[in-house]
Structure formats: structure tokens, C-alpha cells
């Protein structure tokens, strides 16, 4: 498959831009629809599968200018409805088309605090881009305006120029807010609450900040430098960041309020309790949760062999169970760690995969072998307890189930076995039990998530929650959206006192 280089993509975009000339703002809808959608420049697959640098290298300026011209500036702005935090998409895209990147960033930041991150990891094709009129007119949602790529472009533009400004902090109010967890929800709450002049402390269980953006999402999809930058900005705003602090254990949640004087708390501890398949052989050596595999590789730096003290399996043949982003991340990490073969096993079809389309494409380009309509039945091992193979079953799709996806049905007698030495289970997470274990007053659902109202208020006064600990396993942008609502409610509560 031909893989156009960044220079080639840029040259094409520049040529197209030259054709449009100065008439960009006066283009008729038909002319806008005729502009070719801009592909994301990326490292060539055969090169990137041997390194951990970011795969997608980002639009060039010409590409961004051209892609922004594809937007029809619809009056109804359907895209905004698709955005969990209602970014004023038309305005920021128009600003890009006019070459005013700072205005574009400023517009985004009114609604989203982490554009460089969301531009990279949001599932845009099921959110804003699913509603885009351009995609609908061209009868291909993948041909929608590349809103996420444009968001990333301007966020990167600002960061690379070093012009990220530290948000203004109002005079001290004397109130204190504790944030439990430094993932996307926690970071957003910290920023929004600190801006109002309240003191903010972020407590993180790990030794580094960023939660899933650090331990989960790999470097090749979200460079850690970007997450670090966001944390630095918070520190510059005067937010106290405390690592190695497990709220509930190092200090009881209620003690923070009752003894340490916190006026409100936000719990954003995430969905960290990996699900397993509950099949035979999952206790074998060589079977990992995706959380463990990715944490060893990312946070503990096991991909830097020779430097990192944390070991990771030396795998030759890997099977990954699941079809989400985490499954793609695990499969592609295994390739980068030197696996010869990586097999992704998913019991529905590619259409039903919850992963971002771009991640699926990238995984395939890199050589991950997709086994759709298959599911593992058991894992087999040798006398030392080491994984030797898996036994799978074939599936077919039946009627749609409660989730609207067609239910996979097993084909009786279709068992077959193939050789692997490593299995990574990436079928999702349940909610982490630690806060619940140590804070009995917090009401939980049957699934173990915290009960919270629209503002994120839990069953305990002054304790708010958001992100995956409320939603179950969801996305960075949804966690961020919840964080923003909870922060607004906390600010309101503290202002009224």
C-alpha cells in the first residue's frame, strides 16, 4: 500500500490552496464539498512499528487551512450537538480557515481544557464528525470535516510556539478543594476550581500524574510530553499536586474534609479494575490484563529495555481479546516490544468495534492480524503454567441486542486451536473498589460505580464525582465534560457560602 509522506500531502494541499487563492471565504458549498479531505500524515507502518514515537504526525499548516475550507458553516451547527462539551466548532474551524489559529484555540478553550489530548484521542467519528453535513452530503462519515485533526493542529501550534498562557486565578477565597485522581476528569476540575481562587490539591495514587492518559494510552498515540505540559500549567496556576497518595488508604476520604479542612472533594478515580473473560486458563503465566501490560510498557517504561527495572513478557506470538481502543493499543504495543505475530480476537465484526477507525487502520497497517467473529474459549498451558495456545470458537451475528449491536452467536463445534505465548485481555474495566471499600457512606450502583446527580454530587454532601468512576468505562472527553459540570457545581456551592 502506498503511504504518502507528509511532504507529499503538504505539496498537494498547497497546490489546492493556490487554486482557491484569496476566494476562500466566498466559496460556494459545492466548491467546498469538492475540496479533497486531508489525510493525516503518519510515520510509515514498517518504520513506526519499531519505535514508540507518535504515529500520526499532525496536519501541516496548508492541510489545516485547506481542511478548514471544507466546512460549510451550517447555520444549524449539527456538529456541536455531537460534542460532549459543546465546543463552538464552526467558529474555531472558520478561524482556522482565516488563518487565525490563536482565535481558534481560544474558542476551543472556552469549552475544552485539553484540546491537544482530545484532538488525538476523542472518537470524533461517532461524535462531532458523525453529525457533520459534509460527511452526510458525501454519504461517507469518514469524509466529514476532520474536526479532531483541526483541533489537534491548533493546540499543537500553540504549544510548539510556547504561547500557552497560564489561566488567570482569582484572588484567594480561603476555600480548599481536594481532587482525587489526576486523570482527565480530575485535571479539568482542578483547573476550573482553581481559576475561581480556591486552593486545590490533586491526590494521585501513582508516582506520576495523568491517570489513564499516562499509564494507559501509549506514547505512540499520545506523547507523554503533552500530558506533562497540562500538569505543568496546573502547577503554574498554584495547584498542589501530591503523588503516591491513595485517598481511602493513605488518608480516609472523609478525614480530608472532617480533619484536614477541605471544603469539597471531587472523586475521579477511574474505572480501574480489569475485567477478565472468566474462561479456563486465565491464571496462566503470560495472561495479562491490558491495564497491566500497558502500565508496564508505558508508565513503568518497560519498552526501554535495559533502562527500566520493570520486566515485561518477551512475547513471540500474542493474542489480544477485544475490539476497543485499549485492545488496539495493546496489540500495537506488543508489536513495538518485538512480537513476531499479534492476533486480535473479536467476537463481532469490524463494524461493531468500539475502537476509533484511525486506530483500527493503523493497527492493520502495522501488521496486527484481525480475527473477527471469533472468541477465545479457553487458554492452554504447559506444566510450568506458561501459555502455549488458545482455543477459539467461530461466531455469527444474530439479532440486535440491547446495545443496538447485532448479537454474536457461537457456531457449535467450530472450535480450533492456535499457538500463542501471550494473551492480553482487553475487554473493559469495572469500577475500582478502593474508594467504596474505604468510604462506606458513598452510595454505589449495582455495577459498583458511584451514584451522582447531573452536577456530579454524590450521596455525601460536598463530595462530587465524575469520569469513569461514575460512567463506567468511557472516554477522555466524557470524563472531561463531567469534570467541568462538577467543577461548576463546586464553584457555585463555595460561592454561596
Amino acid at each position, binding site marked *: 500500500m502506498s503511504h504518502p509522506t507528509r511532504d507529499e500531502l503538504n505539496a498537494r494541499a498547497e497546490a489546492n490552496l493556490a487554486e482557491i487563492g484569496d476566494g476562500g471565504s466566498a466559496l460556494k458549498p459545492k466548491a467546498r464539498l469538492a475540496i479533497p479531505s486531508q489525510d493525516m500524515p503518519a510515520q510509515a507502518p514498517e518504520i513506526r512499528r519499531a519505535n514508540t514515537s507518535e504515529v500520526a504526525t499532525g496536519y501541516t499548516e496548508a492541510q489545516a487551512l485547506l481542511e478548514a475550507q471544507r466546512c460549510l458553516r451550517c447555520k444549524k451547527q449539527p456538529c456541536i450537538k455531537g460534542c460532549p462539551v459543546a465546543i463552538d466548532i464552526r467558529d474555531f474551524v472558520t478561524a482556522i480557515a482565516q488563518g487565525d489559529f490563536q482565535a481558534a484555540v481560544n474558542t476551543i478553550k472556552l469549552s475544552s481544557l485539553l484540546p491537544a489530548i482530545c484532538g488525538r484521542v476523542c472518537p470524533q467519528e461517532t461524535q462531532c464528525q458523525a453529525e457533520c453535513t459534509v460527511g452526510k452530503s458525501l454519504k461517507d462519515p469518514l469524509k466529514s470535516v476532520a474536526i479532531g485533526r483541526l483541533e489537534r493542529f491548533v493546540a499543537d501550534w500553540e504549544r510548539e510556539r510556547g504561547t500557552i498562557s497560564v489561566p488567570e486565578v482569582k484572588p484567594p477565597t*480561603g*476555600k*480548599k478543594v481536594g481532587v482525587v485522581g489526576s486523570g482527565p476528569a480530575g485535571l479539568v476540575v482542578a483547573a476550573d476550581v482553581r481559576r475561581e481562587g480556591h*486552593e*486545590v*490539591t490533586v491526590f494521585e*495514587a*501513582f*508516582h*506520576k500524574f495523568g491517570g489513564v492518559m499516562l*499509564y494507559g494510552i501509549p506514547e505512540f498515540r499520545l506523547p507523554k510530553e503533552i500530558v506533562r505540559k497540562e500538569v505543568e500549567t496546573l502547577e503554574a496556576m*498554584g*495547584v*498542589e499536586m*501530591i*503523588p*503516591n*497518595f*491513595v485517598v481511602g*488508604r*493513605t*488518608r*480516609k476520604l472523609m478525614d480530608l474534609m472532617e*480533619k*484536614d*479542612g477541605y471544603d469539597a472533594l471531587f472523586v475521579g478515580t*477511574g474505572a*480501574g*479494575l*480489569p475485567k*477478565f473473560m*472468566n474462561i479456563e486458563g*486465565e*491464571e*496462566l*503465566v*503470560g495472561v*495479562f*490484563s491490558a*491495564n*497491566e501490560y500497558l*502500565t*508496564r510498557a508505558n508508565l*513503568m*517504561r518497560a519498552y*526501554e529495555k535495559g*533502562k*527500566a*527495572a*520493570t*520486566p515485561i513478557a*518477551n512475547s513471540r506470538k500474542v493474542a489480544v481479546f477485544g475490539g476497543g481502543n485499549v485492545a488496539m493499543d495493546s496489540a500495537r504495543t506488543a508489536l513495538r516490544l518485538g512480537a513476531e505475530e499479534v492476533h486480535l480476537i473479536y467476537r463481532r465484526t469490524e463494524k461493531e468495534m468500539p475502537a476509533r477507525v484511525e486506530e483500527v487502520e493503523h493497527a492493520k497497517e502495522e501488521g496486527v492480524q484481525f480475527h473477527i467473529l471469533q472468541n477465545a474459549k479457553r487458554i492452554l498451558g504447559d506444566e*510450568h*503454567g506458561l501459555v502455549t495456545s488458545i482455543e477459539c470458537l467461530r461466531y455469527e451475528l444474530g439479532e440486535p441486542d440491547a446495545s443496538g449491536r447485532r448479537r454474536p452467536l457461537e457456531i457449535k463445534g467450530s472450535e480450533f486451536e492456535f499457538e500463542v505465548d501471550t494473551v492480553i485481555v482487553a475487554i473493559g474495566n469495572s469500577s*475500582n*473498589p*478502593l474508594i467504596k*471499600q474505604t468510604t462506606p457512606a458513598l452510595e454505589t450502583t449495582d455495577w459498583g460505580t458511584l451514584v451522582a446527580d447531573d452536577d456530579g454530587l454524590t450521596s455525601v454532601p460536598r463530595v462530587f464525582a465524575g469520569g469513569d468512576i461514575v460512567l463506567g468505562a468511557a472516554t477522555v472527553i466524557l470524563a472531561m465534560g463531567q469534570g467541568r459540570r462538577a467543577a461548576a457545581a463546586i464553584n457555585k456551592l463555595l460561592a454561596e457560602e
Partner: protein
Amino acid sequence: MASREENGRLPVAGRDPTAMGTRVHLARSFVANRKNRNMMERTHTILAKRQLSENVFSLRVNAPLIAAEREAGQFILLSIDGEFGERIPLTIADADPDEGSITLIFQRVGMTTMKLAEMNVGDALAVLVGPLGLPTHIENFGTVVCVGGGIGVAPMHPIVQALKAAGNKIITIIGARNQELMVLEDEMRAMSDELIVCTDDGSYGRKALVTEPLKEICERDPKPNLVVAIGPPIMMKFCAETTRPYEVHTMVSLNTIMVDGTGMCGGCRVTVGGKAKFVCVDGPEFDGHLVDFDGMMKRLRGYQAQERQAVADYEAHRCNLDAAYREAADKE
């Protein structure tokens, strides 16, 4: 705010508190409420170091929050390098909330513990997080037999303390391969109503495996109400097998491979009663009669090859260093 300001805050000498931002305010509230000046002192400095045997060391480490919160049976995770270090779980052998310190006892077995043994008083641990895991369920059970094997006596120590304080009659069995490897004998003797010491080679105390006296005690009338066994997996397995016919409830404390220690990675999972349990959040203590020790021992060996290689590399590196030093010294 006024009430907090008046709440016995200690002034920070020579610094304008307002210029310090949130850091000072936070420290203040902990200081005010815990009556302990170094409560929020998060530098985990080694306050004392003792070598208990050739490969067993004891470190007393500054950790005021952990010292205040920890209960018997809980553990910590530590790392000696915040960038490339590995996180290893160690049980808390003792704590002094007044001093704000905890005591860790560890055996030099892998790369991290080798390096840890080389650290000295005044050095600081890069990462120390805890207390983790569910605390031991403590009540007055009656007679409790506490079996500690090798380094397992260290985690047993706070459990015996708590059981004794709850009014239990304590019969302690401590065992080691030889006398040299016996730790905390005096401490255990002081807390026990009866202490039985055994070594595999008979170099000290009774020449026996811990399961021998355990079986004899189970045959007493009345039989003990509870057995707590902590030590190498194989020892815990055979303790559980010893007590099973007598139907004496037997609790074991497991130490498996962990990364985060908060339930996130699942690397510590072990099969208990046919179900996967996470040692870090469901344990570390389980009913020994339900634990799949064979499966657990296999999982513990999961990284053995890499660990051996790392240790070999490290030792080679040290030998080279030693050789270089000797060479340099010879030249002088």
C-alpha cells in the same frame, strides 16, 4: 478560614506563607490536626538500617501518614527510582506514629532489593505508597497459632501485636532454614504465650519443619481457634494442608507480583475458591484452605528469567566497578 488560621498553626520560619501558595496551607492543616510537625513531610528518608542476617535487612523510614493510618496486615509499595524503577510490595513490619516512621523488613532477592540493601541512613526512597490492602480482621478468637517462616515473621509481627492486644492466647511457631536466617525471635517471644523455634537443619531450636509442631498443636484439646501462617508459598500451602483435617480456620497472607497495588492491573491475581481474587484489594489475607497455591507459585515465577538476568547484569556491573576501583587503587 479564620477558624483554621487559629487552629494551632505553626509559623514557617523565614518565609512568607502567602508566597508559598497551597503547599503551606495544606501542610498547615495536617500539622494543626495531627499534632505532628512532619505529617506532610513526604520525603521518605531512611532513619535507621539494620542487617538482620546475611540477606535480611530492616529499614526504618520516615512516613508519617502511613504510620498513622496503617493497621496490621497492610503493606506498602516502594520504588527506588521514580523514572525507571520497579514498584515492589513489602509488608509493614512495625510503625511508630509518634516518630512518624514505619519499619520495613526485606530479603535481598532481586535487583530492587539488592539496591535497597545498599541504601543508607539519610537516603530517601523515590516512591513509597500505602498503606495498601485490607487490614487483618482482629478480634478475640481465643487461642491463635501464628506460624512465621523465614522473612514471613516480619509481616507476622504487627498481626501478633494486634491479636495479643485483643486478648488472644498466642502460640507462635517460627521457622527458618538455619539459625542465621532466623529474624525477630526476641520480639516474637516477648508477645507470645508459647514460642516454638525450629530450623530445617537443626542448627537452632527444634530440627523440624513448622508443620510438625503445628500438627501437634492442632491435636491438643481444645484445638486452636485460628491459625495464621505467613512465609514462603510452599510453607503456607503445607500449613493449610496440615490444619485442613482438623478444620481449624487458617489465614494466609500472600505476597504476589504487583504494579499499582490499587486493583488496577490485576497482575497480583490468585485463584481462591475457584475465583480470581486480587491480592492488593481483596487481600492480602485469604482463607488458606481455598487458595490455589500451585497456581500462585507458577505466577510468582513469571518473570524469573528476566529477574535472574537483571541480577546477573547488575552483579557483573558491580564486579566491573570493583575491578576498576581495585585497579585505580593499585595504580596509586
